[in-house]
């Protein structure tokens, strides 16, 4: 349904030649710019070199998970287990390289991705093969993975002094002024973006999310795509877990708690339709960036930090309400135009 409206509007938009301004990412980007500029005007340290780094590091982890969640949301599914997956991957990857020497970066990522793929495989098999509702399955795996994580972590924690030195510095180092963690997210986002925009199987995700029965009739291997999307989502959460250890230089039993809702909020604010069929990786990343910036901006403006959650929630409501009102108006305009 949403794809139908977007294609219609796109063709109309191309004629009027303002397709860029009509894109869903523009208001999110504008809001982000507004927050960044507005805050730095009143607190010049907000966008100092250190401030920029902190902001990007925080946004990187949410953004990485949001990339994966986008795959799933596009298909009109949802993955609530990403927070637990992030936590488990963080701990397993952290323990795989602790007390070892330098040069284990690849190993950490391989372990993290493997953990993520395993959880994604379980989710995907249950949802794709047995046609189980995604919300129920991933709520179940949220609990199971969280329990497994807490059980293997126990009361212990991995601290920075037991991690290899190059791994810890990787978490804070910069390349061309941007933290290395953010580069990883940007590269992953670029790959995912190209995949969703230009590859046939990537386009399939939009088709399935717009109209699942029709896409099945059109010969799209819906089950394989679902399985693939969940494994991709798991892998992204796994990578995010490694970023988490690198950034914080440690991990305990509570790592990743509550990330799932923050990530879904980021995607939805960035214009990924929670009902499938429309949305972009760029939007999801902008959404993650915006939510994180607001948090940092509040503390830069010395507003108590606990307002952050309320503002994030309100922002999500504003974003989906605005989307809805715009869609309703556009539909009405098109109806009148057809007459």
């Amino acid at each position, binding site marked *: 349904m949403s794809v139908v409206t977007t294609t219609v509007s796109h063709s109309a938009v191309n004629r009027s030649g303002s397709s860029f301004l009509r894109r869903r990412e523009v208001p999110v980007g504008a809001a982000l710019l507004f927050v960044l500029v507005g805050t730095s005007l009143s607190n010049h340290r907000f966008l100092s070199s250190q401030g920029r780094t902190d902001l990007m590091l925080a946004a990187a982890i949410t953004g990485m998970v949001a990339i994966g969640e986008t795959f799933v949301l596009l298909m009109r599914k949802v993955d609530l287990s990403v927070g637990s997956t992030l936590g488990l991957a963080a701990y397993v990857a952290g323990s795989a390289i602790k007390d070892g020497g330098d040069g284990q970066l690849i190993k950490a990522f391989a372990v993290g991705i493997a953990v993520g793929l395993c959880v994604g495989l379980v989710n995907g098999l249950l949802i794709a093969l047995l046609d189980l509702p995604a919300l129920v399955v991933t*709520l*179940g795996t949220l609990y199971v993975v969280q329990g497994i994580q807490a059980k293997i972590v126990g009361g212990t924690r991995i601290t920075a002094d037991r991690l290899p030195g190059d791994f810890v510095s990787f978490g804070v180092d910069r390349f061309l002024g941007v933290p290395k963690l953010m580069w990883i997210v940007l590269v992953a986002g670029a790959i995912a973006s190209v995949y969703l925009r230009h590859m046939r199987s990537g386009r399939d995700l939009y088709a399935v999310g717009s109209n699942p029965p029709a896409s099945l009739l059109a010969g799209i291997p819906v089950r394989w795509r679902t399985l693939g999307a969940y494994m991709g989502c798991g892998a992204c959460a796994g990578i995010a877990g490694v970023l988490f250890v690198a950034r914080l230089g440690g991990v305990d039993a509570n790592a990743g708690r509550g990330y799932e*809702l923050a990530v879904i909020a980021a995607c939805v604010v960035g214009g990924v339709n929670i009902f499938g069929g429309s949305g972009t990786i760029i939007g999801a990343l902008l959404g993650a960036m915006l939510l994180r910036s607001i948090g940092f901006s509040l503390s830069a403006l010395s507003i108590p930090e606990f307002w952050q959650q309320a503002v994030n929630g309100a922002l*999500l*409501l504003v974003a989906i309400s605005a989307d809805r009102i715009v869609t309703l108006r556009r539909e009405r305009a098109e109806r009148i135009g057809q007459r």
Partner: protein
Amino acid sequence: MKQLNRLQWDKFVPVLVMLTLLVGSFSNEKFLTTSNMTFLIQSIGEIMLIAFSMTFLIIAGEIDLSVSSTAALSSCTLGFVWQHTSNIPLAVLSALAVGFVCGAINGLLVTKLGLQSLAVTIGTLALYRGLCFALLGDNRLTPFPTSFTSLNFKGLFGTWVPYVVVPLVVFGVAFGVVLHATRLGRWVFAIGQSKDAARFVGISVQRTVLAMFITNGLMAGVAGVIYTIRFASARPDGAVGMELEVIAAALFAGVSIFGGVGTMWAVASSVAFLGSIRSLLRLKGANANELTIVTGSLLLVSVVIPAIGVRVSGRRHSRSPLRGALDPAPTGGADLGNRGTPDEPQVLARP
């Protein structure tokens, strides 16, 4: 076939409770003692109260994730008003009013703007929680009068049965009767099957859905008051994650996340079952992490087994020309929310 399986499952859940109590009483002599039962009933009180009204919402094809934040906000309001007016009835009333308003905001956004309830309530989950912190800061309030908090330790008529049984039974019977024996209850099922069809037969879908969200907010408010009494404190980070426990219990009871299917007795039993399993495992020395794994696995099992049953029986009946035609067709309408599509393969099976 799916209907049949679900029907059998919801009759089986009360049996599961009996079995757990039976096995529990044999395997651990501490399990079926009055003190443990008191503790067990208290520990499931808030979850069960919210589960009653959540069942209505899920059957109607909606969902409310904001209940834990609503409960916490009502608890914080109770503390805040008590601190400033020292008037307990006023504090309780304002706590319930907060629940009402929170539910009404959810309901209005869903019905008036036509937004998906999943997205709306993820937003209000964060919003209401943020307001808790805005109200109380990082502190927790504990200066409640003992006449108020000692309610928790008083048994009913001087027995071991905790007072919370009264609201549980009253609300449980009321919600059960409304859902299964009144016209309003039939409407809820009809809305869950198909919102469009319900509208065409003259059901005021919007008003019913709004009323359900408000009721759900109110019940979360009641749960918030009971939570405050139980812990004798109001804290902004109270009841975190309770929404998932409530939804897990409802889904374990066989309430269909796609709407249109579910029973009140199964939900009540399912909360009791999950509570007694947890209590039993805790007595056996399991820690919180193992309990989390068990809850999650039970939830998965409760959907996997019926699904496999449907597959097996579906294969047997796959030649029937009526297959697929009898099941509600997967609509692409935005009303169903983000619930996936249950019946994809059956589209192909149609002649």
